[in-house]
C-alpha cells in the first residue's frame, strides 16, 4: 500500500516536473519570436539605447504601418499570395489527376512512367535552377511571377503521395459507381477526392510552405521590385550598421503572420501532415 502511494506520488511529481521542463523549453523556443515582437514595438531611440528592455515605454504600433511605406511590403505580400495560390491550385489539379491514373487505370508503360516519377523525387531542386533560368529566358518569363508558379507546380511528390493514399481507398466504392455509369472523371472527383481530403490537405499545406518560403528561385528569376516575393524583399533588409531593427522585426513578423495564423487554426493538420509525410518544408 505504501509502495503504491509512493509510486503514485512519484508519477505525479514526474508529471509536474515534465510540464515545468517543457515550459522552459517553450520559453527558449519562443524567445526569438517574443524578442522580435518586443523590438518591433520600440522607438528608434529605444532600439539603440535600451536594447535589453523587454517592454517598450509606449508600444509603437505605427512601426507596422511604417513597414508598408519604407518597402513595398503590400506588393511583396500580394506577389507571394499570387504565387502560392496559383501553385497550390495547379499542383492539386494536376497531381490528383495523375495520381488517379497511377492508382487505378491500366495502360502500357504505366510502371515505367511511374519509375520516372520516383527517379525525379531524387533530384534536388537546385540542380534544375540553371536550366530553368534558361527556359524562362526563352519563354520570356524572367522577372515574371509565372516563372515561379511554373517551376514549383509540377513536382513528382504530390502525385506520388496522393497515389499512395488513393491506393488505400477501397475500390468497391467505385465499382458501384461504374455500374451507375459514372465516367472516370466523375468517379475521381465525386468519390475518390472527397475520401482523400486528409491527403489533399497535407499536399496543400506542404505546397503553401514551400512556395511561401521559397527563396532561391525568386532570387534568381525576379529582378524588379514590383515582382518580388516576400522572402526576397525581406532579405534586402538584412542588417547593416544603421539597420532599423524595429521596422525589420515588424516586417519579418508580418511576413510569417499568415502561416502562423493557418498554423493556429489547423496545427494538427500541419504537424501530422508535414512530419508524417517526411518531406522538409
Amino acid at each position, binding site marked *: 500500500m505504501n509502495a503504491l502511494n509512493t509510486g503514485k506520488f512519484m508519477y505525479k511529481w514526474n508529471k509536474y516536473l515534465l510540464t515545468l521542463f517543457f515550459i522552459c523549453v517553450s520559453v527558449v523556443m519562443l524567445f526569438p*519570436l517574443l524578442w522580435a515582437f518586443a523590438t518591433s514595438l520600440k522607438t528608434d531611440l529605444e532600439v539603440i539605447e535600451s536594447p535589453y528592455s523587454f517592454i517598450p515605454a509606449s508600444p509603437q504600433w505605427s512601426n507596422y504601418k511604417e513597414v508598408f511605406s519604407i518597402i513595398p511590403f503590400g506588393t511583396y505580400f500580394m506577389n507571394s499570395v499570387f504565387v502560392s495560390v496559383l501553385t497550390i491550385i495547379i499542383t492539386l489539379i494536376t497531381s490528383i489527376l495523375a495520381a488517379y491514373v497511377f492508382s487505378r487505370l491500366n495502360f502500357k508503360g*504505366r510502371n515505367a512512367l511511374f519509375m520516372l516519377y520516383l527517379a525525379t523525387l531524387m533530384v*534536388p531542386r*537546385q540542380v534544375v535552377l540553371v536550366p*530553368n533560368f534558361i527556359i524562362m529566358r526563352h519563354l520570356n518569363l524572367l522577372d515574371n511571377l509565372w516563372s515561379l508558379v511554373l517551376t514549383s507546380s509540377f513536382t513528382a511528390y504530390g502525385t506520388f503521395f496522393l497515389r499512395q493514399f488513393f491506393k488505400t481507398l477501397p475500390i468497391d466504392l467505385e465499382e458501384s459507381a461504374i455500374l451507375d455509369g459514372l465516367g472516370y472523371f466523375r468517379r475521381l472527383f465525386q468519390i475518390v477526392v472527397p475520401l482523400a481530403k486528409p491527403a489533399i490537405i497535407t499536399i496543400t499545406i506542404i505546397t503553401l510552405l514551400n512556395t511561401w518560403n521559397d*527563396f532561391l528561385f525568386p532570387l534568381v528569376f525576379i529582378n524588379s521590385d514590383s515582382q518580388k516575393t516576400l522572402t526576397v524583399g525581406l532579405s534586402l533588409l538584412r542588417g547593416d550598421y544603421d539597420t532599423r531593427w524595429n521596422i525589420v522585426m515588424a516586417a519579418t513578423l508580418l511576413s510569417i503572420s499568415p*502561416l502562423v495564423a493557418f498554423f493556429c487554426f489547423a496545427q494538427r493538420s500541419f504537424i501530422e501532415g508535414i512530419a508524417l509525410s517526411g518531406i522538409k518544408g
Partner: protein
Amino acid sequence: MVIDRRKEGLVAAVMVAPNLIGLLVFMVVPTVISILMSFTDWNLLNTSSFIGLANFKEAFSDPLFWKTLKNTVVYVFWKVPFNIFISLILAVLINQRMYGRTFFRAILFLPMIASSVSVALLWQPLFDMSSGMLNKILTTIGLPPSTWIYDPKTSMMSVVIVALWKEIGYYMVMFLAGLQSIPSTYYEAASIDGASAARKFLFITIPLISPTTFFVMIISIIGSFQIFDLTTVLTAGGPSNSTNTLIMYVYQAGFRFFRMGYASALSTILFVIVLIFTIIQDKLSKKWVFY
C-alpha cells in the same frame, strides 16, 4: 465486367498529361540539360562548346569549391547528430503523460513553418556582439561573450544553432510517430522484470526506434547539404567565406559570374552527393535497423 482498354488508355493519357508535361519540361529535361551543361563552358554570351571534364577538373583544384564543400560538410556533421539527439530526447519526454502535450508540441514545431529568410532576420540582432541578447545572457550568467556570426571560428556553429532551433520540433514529431508505433507491451513486460527507465530507453526505445532514426538521419543529411537561404541572409557566407556553402557557390558562379557551365558542374556534384545518400537509404533501410 467489360473494360474498354483503348478508352482506358486514352483517359489515362488525358489525365496524366498536365502533370507529366510540366514535370518533363521543368524537372526531367532540365536535369538532363544541367548534367550536359556541366561539360560545357557556356556563360550566357558565348556559343557554348563541349569542354569535357574541364569544369570538374577546375572544381577539384578550386580552393573556393573545397572551402564551400568543407563548410557544407561541417554544417551537416555538426547539425545532424545534435538534431537527432535533441529531438529524440524531447520526443521521449513529450511522449509521457503530462499537461499541455499538444500545446508544447505545437510551440516546438512553430519555427518550422517560418521561412529560413525570416528566421535569419529574427536571429541576426540576437547575435550582435555589443547589443545582442545572447551575449547579454552569457555575461549575466558569468560566461565570456561569444563572437557568434562575426568570427570565422564561431560563425558556422551559430548557423547550426539557428538551424537546430528551426528544425528540432519537426524531427521531434517524426520521432514521436516512431515512438507511438512501439507496442506498449514491451515496456509493460520490462516493468514487470523491474527494468529502470534508463534501461527501458537503452534496450527497448533505442533499438525499436532505429528505423525512424535512420530515416531522420538521411533526410536531415540530404536537406542539410542543400543549405542556402539561412546562410545567405544570416551571414552572406562570411566572414571570410566561413559560412559559404555549396549551393551558395552554385548561385555565385551562375548568377554573379554567369558561368553557367561551371555552376552546372557544381550542382551536378551536389546531385551526386545527394544521390549517394538516397541510395544508401534505399539499400540499407532494411539491413541497418535492429529488428
